[in-house]
């Protein structure tokens, strides 16, 4: 009102032109401010809990793709300003499921959030079936599935450092070489201390003394390295005494349960995973050449008052002979891994066909590991009560 008075005010009191101009300016500024305000669309609403209809305080309302956002106040109310509609807003609060909403009209709205109970519904495989993790009292660890992807030739490499309470010591650096796994420490001096492996229900005892592999003694290779880590669905490790309850004395050193992948109902899925890498010795020892070594030997003998071991002529005859035997024994070794799998099925039949190829040239010449694996898993429901698995 004051602005208008100024505009229409008493001309005699003020220099007419300046007041009119100022008035016009003020009026113009007010109008433009109003129009700027009109561009903002306010989305107002209230956030309530679905079942009890109580207000949700502190729910975060975010406008997708924009920086705009708000939180609900003590009464559950919120206001978000946007420039155009429609927008997608995501409403989240701790303990509730995130609700995404597309807003097409800026009517005051009520948003109902449903509780997210988030109970542990994960299932772990134990010796005598499966159990919910929330109900589990024994000591069981599961290998995170992403770790399996990092496994090299054998899945044991993935166990290393991934699970608490188990010690994995690589017994051989050769490709395909085994690792000694201790779950419950060393129990026996004469007997084995290795855990029992159960692969899809079949117990396999893996003796670490058979896992030697290398350039010189080409003994049996770790049988576990014959399993393609890409075929493994889950690895559960039973660490406590309950393991012995079902597997008897063989489970005294702990049990590692390996479940392989099965066919899944749904659209046919083809997966290819591959990797290629070069392995190289990280550090080679710098050594003297033959002549340098002879001179050093002579110097050492001279220091202790003895005669020289080699004459100057002998040393000269060595010339520039300089063989680096490390180079002769070591190489840059390629490692490649390819997995191709087909998974699919319907309500009655599910299949999983996978083939994998791993080739690891050891950095020491003479060591290498090659694995070509093919696996077919077929589950068929012949009737309501009759299933076949292969």
């Amino acid at each position: 009102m004051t602005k208008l008075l100024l505009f229409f005010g008493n001309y005699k009191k003020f220099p007419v032109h300046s007041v009119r101009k100022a008035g016009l300016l003020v009026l113009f500024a007010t109008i433009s401010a109003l129009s700027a305000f009109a561009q903002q669309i306010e989305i107002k609403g209230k956030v309530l809990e679905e079942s009890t209809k109580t207000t949700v305080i502190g729910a975060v309302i975010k406008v997708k793709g924009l920086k705009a956002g708000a939180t609900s106040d003590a009464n559950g109310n919120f206001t978000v300003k946007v420039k155009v509609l429609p927008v997608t807003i995501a409403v989240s609060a701790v303990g509730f499921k995130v609700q995404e909403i597309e807003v097409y009209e800026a009517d005051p709205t009520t948003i109902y959030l449903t509780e997210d109970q988030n109970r542990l519904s994960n299932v772990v495989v134990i010796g005598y079936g499966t159990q919910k993790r929330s109900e589990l009292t024994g000591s069981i660890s599961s290998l995170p599935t992403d770790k399996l992807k990092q496994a090299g030739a054998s899945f044991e490499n993935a166990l290393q450092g991934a699970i608490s309470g188990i010690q994995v010591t690589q017994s051989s650096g050769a490709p395909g070489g085994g690792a000694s796994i201790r779950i419950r420490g060393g129990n026996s001096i004469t007997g084995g201390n290795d855990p029992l492996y159960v692969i899809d229900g079949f117990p396999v005892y893996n003796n670490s003394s058979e896992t030697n592999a290398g350039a010189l003694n080409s003994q049996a290779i770790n049988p576990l390295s014959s399993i393609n880590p890409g075929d493994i669905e889950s690895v559960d490790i039973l660490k406590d005494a309950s393991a012995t309850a079902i597997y008897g004395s063989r489970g005294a050193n702990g049990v590692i349960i390996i479940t392989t992948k099965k066919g899944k109902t749904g659209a046919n899925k083809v997966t290819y995973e591959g990797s290629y890498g070069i392995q190289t010795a990280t550090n080679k020892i710098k050594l003297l050449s033959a002549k340098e070594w002879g001179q050093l030997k002579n110097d050492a003998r001279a220091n202790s008052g003895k005669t020289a071991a080699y004459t100057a002529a002998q040393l000269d005859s060595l010339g520039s002979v300089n063989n680096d035997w490390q180079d002769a024994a070591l190489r840059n070794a390629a490692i490649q891994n390819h997995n191709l799998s087909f998974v699919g099925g319907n309500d009655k039949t599910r299949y999983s066909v996978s083939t994998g190829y791993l080739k690891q040239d050891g950095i020491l010449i003479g060591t290498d590991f090659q694995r070509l694996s093919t696996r077919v898993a077929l589950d068929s429901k012949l009737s309501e009560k009759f299933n076949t698995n292969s």
Partner: protein
Amino acid sequence: MKTNYFYQVLFTLFISSSVFATENAVKEPVVISGTKFTYPLIEKWITEYEKVNPTANIKLAAKANGGQTADLNIIAHQPAQNELQPNQEIIYAGRYALLPVTNNNNPILAATAKKGLNKKELDKLFFEVIDYDSDEPVQKSKFRANIYSRDNQACASTALAGYFGHQSSEIRGKKVFGDDIYLLSAIKKDSIGLAFNNLGYLYDVNSRNLKEGIALLPLDLKKEAKTILSGNLDEVLSVLEVNRVETVPVEKIGFVYSNQNARKEVSDFVKWVLTDGQKFNHDKGFLNLDKQALAEQAGRLSERFLTLK
């Protein structure tokens, strides 16, 4: 002299305004409000009613502007136990059907073209029930889809969930606020978007054909109901008028009125809707009540409003 003239004008204005005011009080309009997707039908009813009753004054109000004070509130779902006030009652005046619809580029169309989805598969697609105490893993539909639905309190959501035996909070996916028509906008943008929508919005009521950019989800239908997917509104309506189709939820539309402040103008309009008004239902993509139900509703209406005559 000038001042006197001014006062005269002021006085006249005052008198005339009070006269207008009293006139307004006498001819207070009948206000109708409620579920938005029924508005095209309600509007049609009002215009047709006012043609035969030129003195009638019926107003269709947006929900936000005082749904509380409306004489008739439109409801398009079965009310929950405590939803209605003790003095409120419903007179049903029509039905509507919900059909599952998707973007016409959705790969699900090709995947389900042969057999079509049955009620169980639709249930799996649209609803998610989390039973934390159950040992059974949650069954998921094999199709990838983004479900769009109205907010949980909206009539269409409540009716849809009720038909499948769920709570509306168990409908998966994103919510769309505003009106049911925006569900179509949402699925047009999303190639794997799925939604249920009523026939009045799915079809162009003038050309009677399905709107562009959308496609009906193939359903597992019996022989006599196959024409539901034909793409023609009249064929869908004629099938649904006589058949109960398992995969197609059909729900009644009613007027909620308070029997405390019942007015004759209101009852006259509702009576007209139950008789002459029914022939406009198909025009806007809505179904009629069957004859028995109509007679029942009309009977209830005359019982209630007998005293008003």
